[in-house]
């Protein structure tokens, strides 16, 4: 699980071009949108694409988005639960 979280943080930094943030600086429970990492709605789409590309996971229900994409912990839990 720790390896997955570390990989997710690296992917977030790389895909979202977070030039001022290092992967290790992102907290497991830190909110990644709004006041946390400061990501926005376009970033949310990028994260959904990232999940599909790297883990083959589709976020089918839009209403689950805020809960699943809340933090690295919640994304990692969702991947673990849905990865084939």
């Amino acid at each position, binding site marked *: 699980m720790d390896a997955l979280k570390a990989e997710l943080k690296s992917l977030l930094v790389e895909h*979202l*071009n*977070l*030039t*001022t943030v290092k992967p290790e600086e992102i907290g497991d429970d830190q909110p990644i949108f709004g006041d946390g990492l*400061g990501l926005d709605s*376009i970033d949310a*789409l*990028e994260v959904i*694409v990232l999940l*599909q*590309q790297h883990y083959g996971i589709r976020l089918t229900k839009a209403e689950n988005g805020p809960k699943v994409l809340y933090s690295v912990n919640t994304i990692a839990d969702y991947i673990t639960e849905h990865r084939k």
Partner: protein
Amino acid sequence: MSFYINGIGAVSPQKSFAEALSSKPAVHYGNQLHCQEPDYTAFIDARQLRRLSRIVKLSIAASSQAVQDAAPAIIDGVIVGTGWGCIEDTVTFLEKMVENQEEALSPTAFIHSTHNTIAAQVAFQLKCKGYNTTYSHRSISFESALLDAALLLAETPAQTLLVGGVDELTNTSFSILSRFDLFKQPQELGSDSLFSLGTAGTVAGEGSVFFAVSGVRTEHSYCQVAAVQTLSFGSTDDAVEAARKMLQRHGLPAVDLLLLGNNGDSKEDKHYDSFETNFTQQGQTLKFKHLCGEYPTASAFGLGLGATLLKQNLSLGSVPQSVLFYNCSPQSHQALVLLRAC
């Protein structure tokens, strides 16, 4: 249909127009002239920088400089001419379409893959909710934007519009265009020797030049744009005739300076030589594409050079009062712009 250039901003292969007009302009080696890019954090919030593509950053920096230079109360509209658009992100988006079999495509690359992203992002940055249009018309993209500005200013002179000419040079665009033998072979000679080689092909370039224009002259005014005209699919003789009529309409028996878009390609420069022959008795001639390279909107760089020359009196021996600008893309489009000191 005349109007005034009240501010200029540029990101180009030259540090500034003053440097380009000096006795020691920047010399580039090889067959590609890339921009000397500024520290973008001076123009764009660091948090926004991460998502902006290079061409948008070039454009925001140049447009911000033009606004600072003109210091208008408000920007009423943004008009951009671009031949290639946001080509870097277009290529990224197309590559992802192939790699991902048309699934899971990046929204950021898609947003930035459209030509009108440039004008939109410039307006967004400047908080301008007015007129916003993009022209993509090969080598007269910038002149088309300039004509639109002229029409708008004829209707409402007391407004300030931002007009820009922007194109970026990428590895992919250079590679594709090289297949058409458009460029000279990379050699050790510098760009300053472009016009003395006498060989086929030119050097690739890029740049972003923005003008704050208005129907009202201000203390910041560089010059008056007295006339703009484009000709499609005409001959060089047609351009000569159009230029003569343009000068007649403005009561000018001659111009002080001829500003020509020669690009060092022996196959294309003969058109400029033919044009020049008809006006050589009138004044001096200045060429500019050794300073910025060849690209669809290189004429914006040329116009910036001419306007700076008229304002700063950085003359070539005498003070020019009028500049006739001529740029052409053989077999397709030609453009004429008449600048006058004000």
